Structures are given as structure tokens and as C-alpha cells.
């Protein structure tokens, strides 16, 4: 047992030595390391982009914003959003109405400014946005008719409000139920839209980069096969010698697999290193051009795992095919 292991190790070392001395070694290393280097650049760029994005998001984290949620939380305003036709002084127009239960919470969350308000005492609150009020010459204390899906009610304008442009075009009221959609406006402690957009863009860029990196490996698969074929051509005479000194075919094949896979692993490590160096050189050039990246990330194994696995699988299959092909011939 010990003797056969020693023979195997010696055979492996002999094959490795022949391989390292041969000029085909360089081609084999290139065919393995180049696609891995490209994949590493893509993968590291994505990670750098993510880190950069996280930093940018962190800058916006103190900026609060309102978001819409379907589940109710304590810091949310429950609003029924409905669409109505307003009739005022023989003029008719469509408007979006927010019917709210808790007016104070709504005003606080939506940052509504009440510009003008008449005395309290009315059962129903109705505020018209400034832009609509100016457009149709509506003022407080005006009586208007609100028609929703054919059902009309009369209400008095209690207040005029303002906020951003959108809020200037809506009406706010209470006690209208059974129409429209219920929406919860909640105050979030970060900029919800920016976070969502950046994450979505990140996903798109990641999927494009991932596709391009896996696609880049594809043409090298055949090149790898051809490189291993060249290696096999170099080994033929030496393998004949090994047969002649009494080694069995199985042991030689096993040693050949191990030798080629060892070199492949070296090629992969070399490719990752080249990729990282290339990325840093690229970022250094960007810095010279005035674009400063706050962080530079190393590639993560999960993003390299698929291309590396494909490479090793193709190497193993190539050796198997070549051994079978030449074995049949011999």
C-alpha cells in the first residue's frame, strides 16, 4: 500500500515536472487564467459599486420620507384615496380626494400647510389644494358639490392647503367611506425612493455583469480542451515510458488528472490575482481622471464559484475525453 502510494506520488511529480518544463504550460495557464481574470474584474466592480451605493445611501439615511404600506403601523395615516367630480359655480372638474380619519396625523406625516381656515364647528372638514383653488377661484366658505360614482353631497370649503405641487391639486376631507382605495401613508426614516431605485439599478447591473462574466468564459472552454490536447501530445512519449516500467493505466490516468487539475488551480489563483490587480490599476486611472471611489472591494467567492466550477469541470471532462480518445486509438 505504502509502496504504491509512493509510486503514485512519484508519477504525479514526474508528470508535473514535465508539464512545468513544457512550453504548452504557458498556453494552458493563459486559457485558464484569462477568463477568470475577466470574471474577477466584473465581480469586484459589482462589489465596489455596492459598497459605493451603501455609502451614498448612508448619506441619505437621515433624510426621512413618506412611503405607502399596505399594513398599518402606529406612525401611519390611513387614507381613502378616491376620485370625484366637483361642481362649483356651474363649473365641473375632476379631483383626487384624500378622506382621512385622523387629520392631525395626516397633516404631520404629509407636511401639509394650512394656508387659510375658517372657524371650526362644521361636522365635515374639507380643504382644497392651493393650485386647484386658484385655477377655479375657490375660497374658504365656498359651497361645492362633490359627486362620487353618481352619488353627490354638498360640503363647505373649510380650509385651503399647500404642500408640494401634488398636494396643491388634491382635496382633503373626512367621513367619506365605501369608495376608493385605502392606503397607509407612513413616515420612514430614510429616503425610500432613492433606496428602491438604487437597489433596482444595482440588481440590473449585477445581472448584466454576471451574464457577461459567465458568457466570457464560454469561448475559453474549447481553448482549454485544445490546450490539454497539446499537453497530452507532450506526455505521450513519457507515458509510454511509464507503461514500459510497469505502471498500470489507472494509476497513470489518476496522476494525469491530478497534475492537470493542480495546474488548473494555479491558473485560477493567478487569474484572480491578475483580475484584482487590473481592477486596482483601473481605479487608479479613474482617480487620475478625477473620479474617486471611496471603497475598493475584493471579489467574493460566491460570485466566482460558478465560473471556477465550470472551468474545473471542463478541465476534468477534457482530460477524460482525450484519454478515452487516445486510449481507443492505442
Amino acid at each position, binding site marked *: 500500500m505504502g509502496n504504491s502510494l509512493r509510486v503514485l506520488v512519484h508519477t504525479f511529480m514526474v508528470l508535473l515536472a514535465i508539464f512545468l518544463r513544457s512550453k504548452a504550460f504557458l498556453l494552458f495557464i493563459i486559457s485558464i487564467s*484569462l477568463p477568470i481574470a475577466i470574471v474577477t474584474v466584473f465581480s469586484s466592480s459589482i462589489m465596489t459599486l455596492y459598497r459605493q451605493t451603501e455609502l451614498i445611501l448612508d448619506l441619505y439615511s437621515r433624510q426621512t420620507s413618506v412611503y405607502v404600506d399596505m399594513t398599518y403601523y402606529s406612525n401611519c395615516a390611513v387614507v381613502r384615496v378616491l*376620485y370625484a367630480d366637483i361642481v362649483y359655480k356651474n363649473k365641473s372638474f375632476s379631483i383626487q380626494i384624500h378622506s382621512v380619519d385622523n387629520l392631525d396625523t395626516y397633516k404631520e406625516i404629509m407636511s401639509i400647510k394650512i394656508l387659510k381656515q375658517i372657524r371650526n364647528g362644521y361636522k365635515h372638514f374639507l380643504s382644497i389644494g392651493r393650485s386647484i383653488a386658484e385655477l377655479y377661484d375657490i375660497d374658504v366658505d365656498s359651497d361645492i358639490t362633490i359627486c362620487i360614482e353618481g352619488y353627490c353631497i354638498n360640503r363647505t370649503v373649510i380650509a385651503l392647503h399647500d404642500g408640494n405641487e401634488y398636494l396643491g391639486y388634491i382635496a382633503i376631507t373626512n367621513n367619506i367611506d365605501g369608495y376608493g382605495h385605502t392606503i397607509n401613508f407612513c413616515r420612514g426614516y430614510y429616503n425610500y*425612493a432613492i433606496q*428602491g431605485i438604487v437597489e433596482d*439599478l444595482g440588481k440590473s447591473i449585477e445581472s448584466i455583469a454576471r451574464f457577461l462574466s459567465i458568457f466570457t468564459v464560454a469561448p475559453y472552454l474549447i481553448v482549454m480542451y485544445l490546450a490539454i490536447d*497539446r499537453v497530452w*501530445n507532450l506526455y505521450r512519449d513519457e507515458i509510454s515510458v511509464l507503461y514500459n516500467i510497469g505502471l498500470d493505466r489507472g494509476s497513470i490516468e489518476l496522476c494525469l488528472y491530478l497534475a492537470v487539475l493542480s495546474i488548473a488551480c494555479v491558473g485560477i489563483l493567478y487569474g484572480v490575482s491578475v483580475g484584482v490587480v487590473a481592477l486596482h490599476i483601473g481605479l487608479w486611472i*479613474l482617480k487620475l481622471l478625477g473620479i474617486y471611489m471611496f471603497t475598493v472591494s475584493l471579489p467574493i467567492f460566491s460570485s466566482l464559484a460558478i465560473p471556477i466550477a465550470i472551468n474545473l469541470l471542463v478541465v476534468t471532462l477534457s482530460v477524460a475525453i482525450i484519454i478515452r480518445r487516445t486510449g481507443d486509438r492505442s
Partner: protein
Amino acid sequence: MIEILKLINIKSCILIFTSMLITSTVLLTVLGYLQSLYNIYEVIAYPEVFREKPVVVVSSYALAPFTSLVSTDVLGNMLRDVQDVEYIFYQILVIAYINNSRAVIVRGIEAKDLKIIADYRIIDGRDIDGHCFYCIWVGKNIAEELNIHVGDVIVLSSPFLSIPLILRVSGIIDAGYPYNYELLSSISLAQSIRGVAKGYVSMAVVVFSSREDYLVFVERLGLDRDRMSLMERAIVALKYIGREIRPHVYEHMTEMLVSRLGLPRDIYILISFATAFIMSIGLYMIGQSIATMNSHNLEILYEQGVSSIKIKISLAIVLVIFIATSIKLSLITTKMLSNIISLTIVGYPLKVAISKDILLATSIYILFFTLIGLATVKIHGYREETI
């Protein structure tokens, strides 16, 4: 020569041709997608219908068309007394977040302008209305993707606003690419989503009926008439420095945006061509393989007195035929792949864009590396002496 070709193993030919086909397809696909990604702003912002006309797109010096702003008053002053303006229209482009699900582009444009640039049709609902402040129109493809119908309520969160907008879908529009992948609204609503006052737009497209008047206009902006006369079109970016407005001219929208980042367009081309170069190195092996895989037969020929150069020229002719055929076939394969692969950015599908430059560069790379590979093979005793 025919004798030499008869000795080439058909299996080696199939392997080499397949390798070339795969390499050229991958090269064209990767470069085509990079080009498409680079051109995306151009496609979004520049109306295809005016490609043949003298057009000036006036925008501001911004990172992306979604953050660009230009005052319509400033533009009005620039265009004062300029004759032969065939058409002028404004549009607002803003990136937003729809229904808590994904990013989307909202285009604020008037119905009459959209009719001219896209000849749209309403699939469902009513036509674009500039007066409705809570109405939004949805492009056909985005409506299908997000299952949006007329009458639905959508929630639109804008990075420029602290509150989301609740909008009602008033129509589904078929206006072709890129409009079918966007939300369309009135200018005033888009201004609100962008968080700007009336009188500001993302960009203005000015179409001139004569090239002479186009040159008069650009001269008025203080730009070089000779340089501008060489351009097919111009994108004028207004840079506000205090009260002074300084125009910068670019030929492509992306060039402007990339320049703003500090990266000249040449750098992008350099990166693409460097990627192509790295990917083509493998062809060196393929070039060698046609000789090494047929080594026994070729060695016999050599021993019979056929010169090494003659053998290599014959093999080179075979390789050139393979390369020409594989590039032609890979153009078809790339287009087919582009239809199958669905890569998107902000909802816009990316389609491979293969320009003549890319095709020429790819062909040269493939030819160069393959023939170099063949040239390094020594027909006699190749196994010991070649790398």
C-alpha cells in the same frame, strides 16, 4: 493545394469552425451589450424620428437626463428671431419607484409631441390629457409586466419628493421602443414628480428646417460654426456659472454624461476594444490547432517535399474562409441570442447593438490572432518547438 486540403481531418475542421463561431458570437454579444448599455441614454432622450434633420437638443450639464434641468425662458431668449425652426418640443424625464416594486422612467410630454415622435395609439382608456393632475398613462410592455389596467391606482415614489404620489391609470399606450417601457404623463405632473417649478424641463428638442439656420443658432450660442457644421447633430449642455450660461457641445447624449463624470468617450471605446483583445487571445490556440490536429498528415506532406510555407498558406486560406463564415453566422446567432436573453435596465430591454466599428475590430482581432497562431507552428517537429 487541393491535395493539402484533402489531408485535413474533417473532425478537426468542425472543432475549429465551432470554436471560431462561439468566440465570434461571444465577442459580438459582449461588445454589443456594452455598446447598448452605453447608448441607453441616447435611445431614451433622442427621438428616432428626427435622426435625419438638423436638430439641437438643449439640456443642462447633468449626470443623467433624469437630473438635467433647463429653463424654457432661457431657451426662448436663445431662439428669439431665429427663423426656420420647424419644430420645438419639451420633455421631462424622471426616474421613479413604482408600486414599491421597481424603478421606472416617467416621461412628461404633450400628446401632440408624442404623436409626432412616436405615432402612438391608445390600446385602452383615453388619450393623454394635460389637465388631469393625477392621471398617468402606461406603456404597453410595462403594463403587461406589472399587470396594470386602466382605472388601477399606482403609487409613484420620487427621489425628489418626500411623499409618494397616488395616480390613476388613464390609458395604456402603444408607442414603440422606448416609450412602451415608460410611464407617460402631462408636463405639469412630470414637473411635480421631478420636484421643479413650471418653466423647467429636462430637455428641449429644437428641429430646424434648414442646416443654415441650425448653424446661425449654434453661432448665437457662441459655438464654433465650422466645428458644428461637421456634426450630424448637437447636444448643447447649458452650464450655469452664477448668472452666466456657458454652452458645451456634444455629439452624443452619453458623451455628455460620461464627460460630466470625467471619462471621455475614447476611454469607453478603449475598454471595449481591450476586452475584445483579451478575449481574442484564445484564438491563437485555435489557429495553431488546425496544424497540430493534422500533424501526422502534414508531416508526411513535408517529408514528401511540400514546403512549410505552402502548407501554411493553404491552411490560412481555410482559416480565412472559416472566419468569414463564422462572423456572418455569429451575426445571426447574436441577434437570436439577444431575443432570448432578457437583460434590462430601468425596465428597458437591452438589445445588442453591433456597429460597423465593432464588427470590423472583431474581424481584425479574430483574423490576426488565428493567423499568428498558425504562423508560429513548425510543421516539422512542431511538438518540441512551438508554444
